[in-house]
C-alpha cells in the first residue's frame, strides 16, 4: 500500500516509516503544510496519516482540501490533541479514523490496514493469511474450510496480529487495543496471556500452524513459519 505521512516531528516520522516500509509498502513523507498540500494534490495514496499541528498551517485544512477535490484517499488523523471536538470535527470532515499521540506503532498499523482494506477492495472484507481466512463483515474465521468460533477479544486479537504480522507487539499495545486507553492496564497483562493461550489453542486445534510466539516477555509476534 502507498502511504503519505504528514508529520513534522522527525524522530516520530522515522519510526513510523521504518515500521511501515516492508513487504512492498511505499511510504512518502511531508514535513509541513505546504509540501503536504502539494503531494496530496498531485498523487493518490491508499492512506494519509495526518498530524494536525503542522508548521505553516492547520492539518484540518489539508483534510478539507482532500475532501474538496473528492479524493478517495483514506485519512487517519494522528494528533496530540486529545480533544473530543477535534476528534468529532475530523471525523465529520471525512477522516476515517483518529489516533491520539502517544500511540503504539502496532495500533497505527492495525488502523491503517483496516482503512486501506475498507477503501481498496470496495466491499470485499476478507483478510487472508496463509490458511486463515477472516470475514470482517460477518466477523467469522475459517482455517482452511474449518469454521472457528472465537470470542470477541480473541477475534480482535487475531485481526490485530495479522495486521502486524512479523512484528513484535507489546503487551501494553495489546491491552490498549483490547480494553481502550482509559484504564490502568497493568492489571490486564494476565488476561492477555489467557486470551492468547486460548486463541493459540483454538487455532492449532482447527489445524492452523502455530504462528504466535512469545517474545522476551515483552510481547508476542505473529510470524509466518
Amino acid at each position, binding site marked *: 500500500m502507498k502511504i503519505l505521512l504528514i508529520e513534522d*516531528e522527525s*524522530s*516520530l516520522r522515522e*519510526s*513510523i516509516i*521504518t*515500521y511501515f516500509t516492508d513487504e512492498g509498502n511505499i511510504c512518502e513523507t511531508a514535513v509541513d503544510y505546504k509540501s503536504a498540500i502539494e503531494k496530496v494534490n498531485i498523487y493518490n495514496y491508499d492512506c494519509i496519516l495526518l498530524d494536525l499541528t503542522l508548521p505553516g498551517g492547520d492539518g484540518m485544512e489539508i483534510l478539507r482540501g482532500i475532501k474538496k477535490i473528492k479524493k478517495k484517499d483514506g485519512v487517519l488523523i494522528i494528533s*496530540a*490533541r*486529545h*480533544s*473530543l*471536538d477535534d476528534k*468529532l470535527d475530523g471525523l465529520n470532515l471525512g477522516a476515517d479514523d483518529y489516533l*491520539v*499521540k*502517544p*500511540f*503504539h*506503532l*502496532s495500533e497505527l498499523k492495525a488502523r491503517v490496514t483496516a482503512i486501506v482494506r475498507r477503501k481498496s477492495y470496495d466491499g470485499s472484507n476478507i483478510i487472508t493469511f496463509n490458511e486463515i481466512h477472516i470475514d470482517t463483515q460477518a466477523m467469522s474465521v475459517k482455517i482452511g474450510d474449518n469454521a472457528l468460533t472465537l470470542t470477541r477479544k480473541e477475534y480482535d486479537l487475531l485481526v490485530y496480529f495479522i495486521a502486524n504480522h512479523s*512484528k*513484535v507487539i*507489546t*503487551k*501494553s*499495545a495489546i491491552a*490498549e487495543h483490547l*480494553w481502550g*486507553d*482509559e*484504564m*490502568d*492496564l*497493568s*492489571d*490486564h497483562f*494476565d*488476561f492477555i496471556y489467557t486470551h492468547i493461550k486460548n486463541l493459540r489453542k483454538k487455532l492449532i486445534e482447527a489445524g492452523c500452524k502455530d504462528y504466535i510466539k512469545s*517474545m*522476551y*516477555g*515483552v*510481547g508476542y509476534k505473529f510470524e509466518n513459519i
Partner: protein
Amino acid sequence: MKLAAKYNRVTLIASIIVLIFTGVIYYAVIHYILTGQLDRDLAIEEDEITAYVKTYGKLPQAGSFKEQKVSYSLIEANRNVERRYFNNDYFNESEQKVEPGRSLIYTVQVNGKRHSVTVTKSRVESEDLVRIIFLITLSVTILLLITLLLINRFILNNIWKPFYGILLQMKAFNLADKNDIRIESTKIDEFTELNAAVITMSLRVKQDYRELKSFTDNASHEMMTPLAVINSKLDTLIQTETFSDSQGELIEDIYVAVGKLSRLNQSLLMLAKIENNLIGDQETIELDNLIRQKTRQFQELLQLHNINLKTELANKQINMNKHLADMLINNLLSNAIRHNYKDGEISIQLNDSQLIVSNTSSDTALIADKVFERFYKNAASEGMGLGLAISNQICNLYHFKLNYAYQNLRHFFTVSF
C-alpha cells in the same frame, strides 16, 4: 456586630452624654439668668423704698401684695447686717401657702434708727419657666434622637445596599466560572471605588488563573510529542534484535512508565478541559444501561479477584456528555475494584436521586475532605490520584454532588443528582 448597629450604639451613647451635659449647663444658665432678673427686680424695689424713706422720712408700709412681700425689723446699733440676696421659703398670703422665694436684705437709716428691710419675691414663676423651657428642650432633643435612629435604620440600610450586593457577588465568586462579577451602579463614591477595586482584582485573578491553566494545558500538550517519540522508538527497538528476558523486562518497565505518564498527561488535560467548561455535546444517557455495560467490561477483573458484584439498578436518565459519563462510571468502578481484596464485594445502587458505589477494602477510611484533591492517594495505591479529582470535577460540572463516607468497613461513594 453590624456596622449600622455599632454606629447606632456609638451615636446613642454620645448623644445621651452630650444631652445630659448640655442639659445641666442649660439648666444652670437659665437658672442664673432668671435669678439675675429677680435680683434686679429686688434692687428696683430697694431703690423705691430708699427713695420713699428719703422723701417722707419714714418706712413705707410693710405688707404682702401679689408676688411680693416687704418686712422691716429694728436692729441694734452694734449689730451689722450685710446687704445680700438669698433664697428662702415665705408665706404667700394671697395664695395662702408657702412658696419658694428670693429675698434681698439690707439696712436703711430712718430718723437715726437702723432698720433691716427684707424684700421677698416669689420664685414660683421663674422656676416654672425654667422647668417648661427645660422640658421643651428635652423633648425636642429626644425627638431628634429618635429621628436619628430611624434614619440610621432605614436610610443606612438603603445606602449600604450596593455594599451587600457586591459582598454577595464576591461570596459567589468562582475562579473557574466564566461569568465575571456584575456590579449595580451606585452614586456613593466609596462604593464606586470598592466596586472598581473588586472588578479589577477579580479580572486580574482570573487572568492569572487562565494563564496558569493554559500553561498546564500547553505543558501537557508539548509533552505528548516526546512521549509519542519514546513510544515509537521503543516499538522500533524491539523489532531490531533479539533480547534476553531480563532486557525484555526492562523494556516492559519503560513501556508501563511511558503509558502511565501519557495517561497522567491526558488526565491533566481532561481536568483542564472540564474546568474550562469546554465540554459540550450533552445527550440523554440511560445510566443504568451504561453501568451494566461497564460492569460487563470489568467482568474479567472482577473474576480475577473473585469479587462479588451486587447491583440494584432502577431506570435513570441523565443529561450529560457521553464520554464524561463513561469516565465517571469507569473511575468509580475501577477504584472499587483496585482497592478491594480477594473475595471482596462491590455494591452498586442506582435510584432516581442517587448512585451509590460501595466496596469492601483493606484500606482504612480516607480523609473525607482530601479525597477529591488532585494527587491525593493512599500510600499503597498504584493509581495516579487523579481519578477521583476528575470524577468530582465531572460531578461539579453537572451540579451533581459526589460524597465519600466510610461505614462498616466499607467505602461509599455517592453521586446525588
